């Protein structure tokens, strides 16, 4: 494996292998001295064309704990606005000798395109509304630790699916690990062509959150997605209040869920909109665990892509 562009690049075995490494990395996080020498002499560039303190710091710490030299490049607005092409921008950075390029870009497909231009290993840290593979891996890793295995488990993903790269990566990751997935959203926030897509990829769709929470004993895990503020004026739904009534994880819905059903959210949360404070802070909420899992999973990804003598270094 040279790049991590999409969850689609990973077999179920490869995902479990990453999770095993992540578990080791998790142990490292509990040590007093958190450094491993694995990536000594390697250079990792975090190239972020879009702000994300959370994801960027997670990759930065992951690289540093593996002893890589980590450089952050904030490339926001640097290419099109100056007339430079994305290719030129990226090649300029990579000309300095880069082993790993962690890229976040507001355009779908950007990470794949970049991987065709550079020699470095590319990690997709979120491309537009397309994919965010390390987020999906950390979500699945977190849930697997809670639930034992994802095989046959039912996961509900709720919220703005159309604009969610987290959803697109999670669908692939969860189904690959054997989970049954139901995605829930109002029709305006369902991706186009979701009917044919869900049939081919093997997931269910619903417009009715309460039905999904009650039917067949309810889901084994719930993943709430963030609603972007700008969607509220885009005629996607009538009002925040109506959204919360239809699709929010409210206190009432929390009561319907069993106390052992983990609640995920990729953050940052709109408390009171897609998730009530009670649900966000409930004992079953794994939101903070997702953050520490994220670090472990990103360490594992960088390790598998960049460590070792063999080309590509998939251990």
């Amino acid at each position: 494996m040279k790049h991590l562009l999409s969850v689609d690049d990973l077999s179920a075995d490869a995902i479990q292998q990453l999770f095993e490494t992540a578990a080791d990395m998790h142990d490292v996080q509990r040590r007093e001295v958190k450094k491993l020498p694995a990536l000594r002499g390697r250079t990792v560039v975090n190239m972020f064309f879009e702000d994300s303190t959370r994801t960027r710091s997670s990759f930065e710490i992951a690289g540093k704990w593996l002893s890589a030299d980590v450089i952050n490049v904030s490339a926001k607005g640097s290419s099109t606005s100056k007339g430079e092409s994305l290719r030129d921008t990226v090649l300029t950075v990579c000309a300095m000798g880069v082993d790993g390029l962690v890229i976040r870009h507001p355009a779908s497909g950007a990470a794949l395109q970049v991987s065709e231009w550079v020699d470095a290993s590319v990690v997709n840290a979120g491309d537009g509304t397309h994919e965010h593979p390390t987020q999906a891996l950390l979500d699945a890793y977190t849930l697997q630790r809670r639930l034992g295995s994802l095989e046959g488990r039912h996961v509900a993903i709720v919220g703005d699916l159309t604009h969610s790269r987290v959803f697109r990566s999670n669908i692939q990751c969860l189904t690959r690990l054997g989970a049954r997935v139901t995605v829930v959203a109002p029709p305006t926030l369902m991706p186009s062509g979701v009917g044919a897509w869900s049939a081919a990829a093997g997931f269910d769709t619903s417009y009715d959150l309460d039905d999904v929470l009650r039917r067949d004993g309810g889901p084994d895990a719930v993943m709430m997605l963030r609603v972007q503020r700008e969607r509220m004026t885009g005629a996607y739904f009538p009002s925040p209040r109506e959204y919360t009534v239809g699709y929010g994880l409210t206190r009432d819905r929390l009561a319907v869920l069993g106390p052992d059903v983990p609640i995920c959210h990729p953050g940052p949360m709109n408390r009171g909109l897609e998730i009530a404070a009670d649900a966000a802070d409930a004992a079953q909420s794994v939101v903070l665990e997702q953050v520490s899992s994220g670090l472990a999973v990103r360490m594992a990804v960088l390790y598998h892509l960049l460590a070792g003598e063999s080309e590509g270094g998939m251990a």
Partner: protein
Amino acid sequence: MSLVIEGASLLGEGTTDLYVDDHGMLVDSAPAGAERIDAAGLVALPGLVDLHTHLREPGREDAETILTGSRAAALGGYTAVLAMANTTPVTDTAEAATRVWELGREAGLVHVQPVGAVTRGLGGEELAELGLMHRSRAGVTVFSDDGRCVHDARVMRRALEYVKAFGGVVSQHSQDPSLAGPAACCHEGELSGRLGLPGWPGIAEEVIVARDVMLARHTGSRVHVAHVSTAGSVDVLRWAKARAERDGTWSVTAEVTPHHLLLTTDLLAGYDPTYKVNPPLRPQEDVDALREALADGTIDAVATDHAPHARHDKEHAFVDAAFGMVGLETALAVVRTALPQLSWPDVARVMSATPARIAGLADQGRPLTPGSPAHVVLVEPDAALTVDRDASASLSRNNPWHGRSLTSRVVHTVYAGRVTVRDGALVDA
């Protein structure tokens, strides 16, 4: 210089010699001392006419100039092209139109007919000087804000009314901006959903086509639908053409691009901006409907929408890259590959005679008979060719056909009696 074209198959039938006098006119008998072209085995068609070419001059001469675009056109068998108005500055005055026309004359390889903007600066609000452009030496009759839709119904209505005074036609880029905004770049469907690309739904085209044919009917004017891309638009056109024919007071015509006849939306799966075009590539069902509509006359013409771009304008993330692909040099071969059953008279109709009539170019698209100007293209009908984007006269390389095999090859092109392409190579002094 006079010319004899020997043994050509006229529109794929029989063999004939064509004689051209030194005024560039087709004549009855062989002029003395004529240059000769051996056209045995080649099909002779009237020179092709493109209703929709982007030449990028003025403003983006690094991507194409009127001269380089003319060269590409000649290599593609064209003898006339309509140069779209979305240059920098926009072709929205008589002076700007005349300048394009003059540069075309200087290049001298094809007739370059400027298209005038419908609205000032393509702003969509105030009418450009349509009448002055028409009265200029360029004699503009086709008006288009192409690249943008004239989306204000009132402005579109006024434009249609206004051009009636001199028999003009409004060529519409049909894209309702509230249904397919400027970022829309992928046919809206399962693929756009999976790829996370902003969807460009067919309905955004269809509602404008439907509205515009009603406006044309209401005003008794002529509307031309540029680059039709969906089966739904074809349905609307079929209805509108039947009504227009019955009424006899208004008309609707439409064009389709070669790429919409052969390429499908699944090519976007790899996010290659070469395939980013507006309107976007559509699914196979739409492609099938477009082919059928071209064959049965619901769609009148093939137009290239030749849209050259400098390399760095395509080397962006997919949503940020420029829209468009080149197409002048490959159009005939793509049409022949997409519709092998189309007869040569039909090819001549959709790529020459009808576009010339829509554009009001009386000298172009005429049957190859004595008394007509000698605009001729000679085609090797069954030649297999593999497209090489670097073997191109265009300044740009955004060529979706690179490496593909197509059938039919333009061997010679004659523009007003002058050989512009001989044996597949430009004859340019």
